[in-house]
């Protein structure tokens, strides 16, 4: 019977319309209120809401990085480590070259994007699953990043802060005033870069031809190739974009932490999938939701922060995140299996296509 309840939920959640976004948004608000009712401490703006929104801002960008890879039916398991590389490059430029915040951030993002290009090229050239390639890339970068930190520092962190970094990491919208009225204090300044990125991603996937082509590739590589989309180049570009976003998230962590360390990004993997998947992005490619990723990430972090404020241990936190991911996956695949007839047909075409491709 539980399956039936899930099934009913599945229809509302998976139907990729605005209804799903409303459900998700209301869930975020409801859960927030529920936690506040149980424990008024949860409404604490300085120690709960502010860090919650700051993390959510960062992880929305992480989610968007994963969403970009998912949009072409790929995955990027190296999101965390690409963020670490960006953080490292930025940290080095601050520490040794006295770079300004903006220059360091751009250098870091560029370094990550280069790694993304490399990943994309390997995927295209080797024909190996993206998750194996990005996993191998992750392994390589783990060692590389740790090595650089131990070589260049004694304390395994780059701690030099360029002008404005400390401010950006701690300031809130209360510093932005229109006459006598200022923004709320619980909204971190880091929301602004996150919203700029969100706006850019909405533009890409809604308005640009590039975004439409990525979605088309996610739906069917073969049909896209037939429609004269340069699929190989787009795959490489998608991975570069994914990596650049991961890098931006890494820089955001540096700003909120106040230092670049090798540990940055090690916790990115699960949230990077939870955000987009909760928001309605398909694991199989071809369907994305930028706004959904925001609310998916918010939901994850409201849950996480609610549980920690309750003093719930790590074990319960991990278990609930894992179970949440499993639930989302089951719901998604239920809806997919519902439309199996249609999908099966499409798959047959694609299998034949890839069989033909591998014979070539």
């Amino acid at each position, binding site marked *: 019977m539980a399956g039936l309840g899930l099934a009913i939920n599945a229809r509302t959640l998976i139907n990729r319309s605005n209804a799903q976004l409303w459900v998700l948004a209301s869930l975020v608000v409801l859960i927030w209120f529920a936690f506040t009712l149980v424990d*008024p401490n949860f409404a604490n703006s300085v120690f709960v809401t502010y860090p919650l929104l700051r993390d959510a801002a960062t992880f929305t960008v992480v989610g968007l990085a994963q969403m970009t890879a998912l949009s072409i039916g790929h995955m990027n398991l190296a999101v965390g480590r690409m963020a670490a590389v960006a953080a490292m490059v930025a940290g080095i430029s601050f520490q040794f070259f006295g770079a300004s915040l903006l220059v360091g951030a751009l250098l870091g993002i560029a370094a990550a994007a280069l790694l993304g290009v490399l990943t994309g090229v390997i995927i295209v050239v080797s024909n190996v699953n993206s998750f194996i390639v990005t996993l191998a890339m992750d392994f390589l970068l783990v060692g590389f990043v740790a090595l650089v930190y131990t070589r260049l520092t004694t*304390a*395994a962190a780059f701690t030099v802060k360029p002008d404005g970094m400390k401010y950006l990491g701690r300031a809130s919208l209360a510093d932005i005033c229109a006459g006598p009225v200022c923004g709320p204090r619980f909204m971190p300044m880091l929301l602004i870069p996150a919203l700029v990125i969100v706006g850019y991603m909405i533009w890409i996937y809604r308005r640009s031809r590039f975004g439409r082509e990525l979605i088309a590739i996610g739906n069917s590589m073969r049909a896209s190739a037939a429609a004269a989309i340069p699929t190989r180049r787009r795959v490489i570009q998608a991975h570069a974009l994914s990596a650049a976003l991961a890098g931006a998230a890494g820089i955001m962590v540096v700003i909120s932490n106040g230092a670049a360390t090798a540990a940055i990004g090690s916790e990115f993997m699960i949230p990077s999938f939870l955000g987009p998947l909760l928001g309605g992005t398909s694991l199989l490619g071809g369907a994305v939701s930028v706004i959904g990723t925001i609310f998916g990430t918010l939901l994850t972090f409201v849950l996480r922060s609610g549980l920690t404020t309750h003093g719930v241990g790590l074990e319960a936190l991990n278990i609930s995140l894992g179970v949440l991911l499993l639930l989302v996956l089951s719901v998604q695949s239920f809806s997919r299996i519902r439309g199996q007839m249609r999908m099966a047909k499409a798959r047959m075409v694609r299998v034949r296509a890839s069989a033909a491709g591998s014979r070539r």
Partner: protein
Amino acid sequence: MTHRTRRITRLLGAIAAGTLLFAGCSANSASSGSASPEPASAEESAEGTSGDDTSAADSSAGSAGDVMPLSEIKVALVNGGPHPYYASWPDAAAQAKKDFGLADVTFDDTSEWDQTKQNALLDSLAARGYNAFAVFGVSPADINSTFEHLRDEGFAVGSVTSCPAGDKDSAYFCLSTDVEQAAYEATKALIDTLGGEGSIVHVTGLLVDSNTQRRIEGVEKAVAESNGKIKLVQHISDIDNDLQTAEKAVTDLLVSRGSEVDGIVGTSTVSAEGAIAAVKKANLPIKIMAIDDTEPILDGIRDGSVAGTMVQNPWGQAYVGAYVVAKLQSGQCTINEDGIYVDSGSFLVGKDNVDTFDAKRIEKSKSLIDDFNNKYLTCKG
């Protein structure tokens, strides 16, 4: 497509408007959390802070003169992550709560050796009403910004077990072992048991920990004093998080260079335990000087497989640390020298005093409390 975009934009707009309505915007002249509708500022009436950055003005200055009883202080003892060193901290927390009449003393070791997580944990403890913190910072290189953040919000914070890297300490005080001296003495003791000659290996903890750097210096100093009679084969670092890794790393070394090693000095608990286990399995005649007083180490001393151990004072660090941050937070006392360093003591333990050293250590903790009361703090009344 366009239609959908518009709907989404509307959705976003609605939500943004809703949040703003719900939260209320802050007034331009607002200071501190009192502008927000949430009951956040309840715990924020604390003594003044000496923060030096932009948000210092926002903090709860002005209440500097207020004195509250210790029964209103909730102390959080936060370490870097799970580690056997902290086995006695829950007991120290309970004892401090009872002895000093504090509202609560909690011990939390869920930082997972990750500074981001530790910062989040500290925030969540603050949200739960804890207002005095004794912290072992995960990343000593940037822990000062965490300390400043806590002080800006009006909390007393002390650095325990490890001090921030560099010369600056943004916490009110640092209470830890003089690790360089302890490592130096332990190495000296090992060199003595070796008869003043041979090759030794140093196994130790995380390189990120500033303690590790100081320990390496201590060991090297002792080796240098032997005038070349003692050869330092290598430092093995970053093996203090789990026993398996530590044991494997030492085994790897013994596999290739076991025959040339005469002694091992361990300056972090887990790495020392790993060395003991690895040497036992390899069945080599290697002398070990360990650190701390976990069961495997004390058992090793009793059965002779471990030459000695440099015992630190974790219980005292927690107990005394909790006392001092509580006193500071209550406004009853102020620190004389901001960021002062205090040695929590270390004791060389061998077969002769393995069952008696604890009494000496408890004595040391008591004298530490006296030292704070008489020398490092200025208290009212």
